[in-house]
């Protein structure tokens, strides 16, 4: 799924054939045995229409199918053309909280003074908000980093995760303090020591130390114990 800003950037970049006036588009691939796919197409088309789609189009041929996907796969570089820089976030949420989370991301973006284009793996709740910023502008990169962190914490609050596929690495080391308790992180370190007692393999990544979490100062916000009171709880 792509929202308006993302789909328009992708369309200008890849000429995928997306309707630029739409507020959002959803791509849904069905594969398998030929007969089954025909049945599924009918079923899913009906479902999408009853859930409010203004138009549902089936790619006519392999060429058009590839073009539809090219737009999605090229969405990141495409967004790179509408802003000097972009920062790709990768959180996961339960699918049922998607409408709420989208609204909240919009609110957070506004309060950080930055734009966001949204690309999701809709079927599994994996969000890729692309934060638009300008590294040449003083403070913009820091604001993008802060907004990214806030979005990931939002994902944890609704019962999701700080990373769906890009990993923690260095980038999300602080948000690990939000998703896991001291004891949970200590268990990860203990597992690491079972393989690498001196801690030589990829230090400073993936599992934050107690000292880092203390310094970063964030509370453990397991789903349920939360700080955004206006969000509905699940």
């Amino acid at each position, binding site marked *: 799924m792509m929202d308006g800003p993302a789909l328009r950037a992708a369309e200008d970049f890849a000429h995928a054939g997306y309707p630029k006036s739409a507020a959002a588009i959803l791509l849904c691939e069905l594969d398998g045995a030929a007969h089954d796919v025909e049945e599924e197409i009918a079923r899913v088309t009906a479902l999408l229409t009853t859930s409010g789609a203004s138009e549902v189009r089936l790619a006519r041929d392999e060429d058009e199918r590839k073009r539809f996907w090219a737009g999605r796969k090229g969405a990141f570089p495409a967004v790179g053309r509408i802003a000097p820089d972009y920062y790709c976030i990768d959180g996961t949420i*339960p*699918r*049922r909280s998607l409408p709420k989370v989208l609204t909240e991301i919009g609110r957070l973006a506004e309060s950080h003074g930055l734009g966001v284009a949204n690309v999701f793996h809709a079927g599994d709740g994996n969000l890729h908000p692309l934060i638009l910023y300008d590294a040449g502008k003083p403070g913009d990169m820091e604001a993008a980093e802060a907004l990214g962190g806030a979005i990931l914490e939002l994902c944890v609050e609704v019962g999701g*995760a700080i990373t769906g596929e890009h990993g923690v690495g260095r980038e999300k080391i602080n948000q690990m303090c939000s998703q896991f308790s001291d*004891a949970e992180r200590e*268990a990860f370190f203990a597992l690491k020591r*079972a393989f690498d007692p001196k801690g030589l393999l990829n230090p400073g990544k993936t599992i934050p130390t107690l000292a880092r979490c203390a310094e970063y100062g964030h509370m453990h916000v*397991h*789903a349920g114990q939360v700080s955004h009171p206006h969000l509905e709880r699940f």
Partner: protein
Amino acid sequence: MTDLTAQLADQVRAATAAATPLRIEGGGTRAWYGRPVDGQPLKLADHKGVIDYDPSELVITARAGTPMAEIETLLAEHHQMLCFEPPSFGAAGTLGGAVATGLSGPRRPFTGALRDYVLGVRVLDGQGEALRFGGTVFKNVAGFDAFRLMAGAQGSLGVLLDVSLRVFPRPRVERSLAFDLSRDAGRDWIIEQMRRPLPLSGAFHDGHRLHVRLSGGEAAVASAAAEFGGEDEALDLWPQVRDLTHPAFQGSPVLWRIALPQTAPLPEFDGRLAWDWAGGVAWLAADEIDPQVWTWAARMDGHATLFRGAKGQVFQPLASPILKLHQRIKAALDPASVFNPGRMYEGL
């Protein structure tokens, strides 16, 4: 619906303080799977209840003592199921026991194993602290996948408190077909079929005939069945294969399960031989334990397990560096070694 986390944590803390081993017990239906544990019972059966189930999210979260039968009935009411087709060895079988033993049924080679459907767990560690690994979403790569590690760890890394499982809609149609093909010919045939995108969901050879199950959309199942031919048979065969109540598994003092590469030769030891998992698991019903089975399985890049008749060793011996790593992993999560010590291996 009872949450016994606090009491269980107290028991674990006391056991760790006194260095008393604990024998973790669910419904007791899988107690035979593994070596006997000499310890005080830690009873999970009353820590039960479904915590959250939203069919549209395709996730169910329940306490470890919840009977599997209750979970499967609830899912069936919503036309959903557990794709790993867990075996049932009695009505008392619990979710915790299913996850700790990690066993999957005949669907395994087609739709994945139990561990592929575990999204998250809450466990008690050796300090009696409740830890949550994973969560309720499919895509989640934060931290090590300690939740998948718990699947099949036989309770030796922690006490499972609750588990979130991914569920799926039931297939619209299922059919079972029988074929007069030998063990080897049947295996070769299914290996060839698996190179095509067919709606297969079971392939079992009982020693005499090949049985194939198809699951999926109407059209795909009908066209595969028309192409395969064979003889239509009742679907009730499959629960018998899953639960090992089919005659192919019965009537011998010893029952071996030998997991092996699908294209490796089938074992040739004394006894009756059947295979499941499209030829990826051989079941050998024998009169006595032939230790050559361990060596043969290892040579084939597989492993053997004694499902019946074990004396001491139940699971395939581990290579020494791997066993040492297992011991370090256990010590990392259970430093006082109180959780089911020795259940998998001596000294673990």
